[in-house]
């Protein structure tokens, strides 16, 4: 519009709506973070300190816990939120420090594939757990 020498190169660079992905990512880190404070610190307290701590944990202990839907939901939420929170944190770190395009791309692919694998594996373990195994 104006006769500014900057007008020509600027025009047409913002034809597409910019994605709000990074904003939602930033917000997700804070919301999931608050939930994880309760889920993870509760988990660490129960598993490591309460009633003998790690010394009392074995297959029967896990079977007793996962007999209750409450702990199944607790562990499932913790798994998903922690992996997505951690995965998004790792994505940020790769974007910050991997300078070559190829390196950044392949590191993130490795991250996404391994994160998805762990989420799927953990979910299957919680849903298909068999207390009478063996």
């Amino acid at each position: 519009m104006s006769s500014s020498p900057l007008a020509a190169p600027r025009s047409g660079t913002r034809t597409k709506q910019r994605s709000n992905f990074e904003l939602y990512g930033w917000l997700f880190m804070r919301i999931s973070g608050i939930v994880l404070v309760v889920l993870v610190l509760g988990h660490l307290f129960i598993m490591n300190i309460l009633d003998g701590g790690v010394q009392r944990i074995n297959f029967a202990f896990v079977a007793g816990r996962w007999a209750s839907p409450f702990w199944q939901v607790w562990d499932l939420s913790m798994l998903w939120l922690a992996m997505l929170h951690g995965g998004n944190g790792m994505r940020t770190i790769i974007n910050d420090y991997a300078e070559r395009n190829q390196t950044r791309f392949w590191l993130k692919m490795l991250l996404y594939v391994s994160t998805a694998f762990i989420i799927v594996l953990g979910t299957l373990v919680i849903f298909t757990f068999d207390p009478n195994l063996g």
Partner: protein
Amino acid sequence: MASKTPVSLRALPIGTLYRGGEGMWTWVLQRITGVSVFFFLFVHVLDTALVRVSPEAYDLIIATYKTPIVNLLEVGLVGAVLYHALNGIRIILIDFWKRGPRVQRQMIWVVAGVWLVVMIPGTYYMMIHTIDALFGSTP
């Protein structure tokens, strides 16, 4: 904008929250603890998945968690998670609480204080068995 800045704030150099000073080191530590916990989480889901293989396989891997050295690593893990959680709450307060940015430095001391108050008895209770096994008189 600049003319409206209170005199007391103008004394501070610009960008003190994350660039240089304590704010930068809390950020560095947030990244280091975050990456460490993420890698542990990875391994931890894999070892827990052994409950689908057999009770013996699971109990065997869990036995390593009960050894003195791994027990000490667990204290390190809890310390890392606790710092990450407390400093994470501090970051949320800086971003969403009106007075947050102004008291961010004081909040570092609150984080350090709460961390110590939880970790001192926490370390003791986490390691009772190991302390007893290594130095206790009970055979």
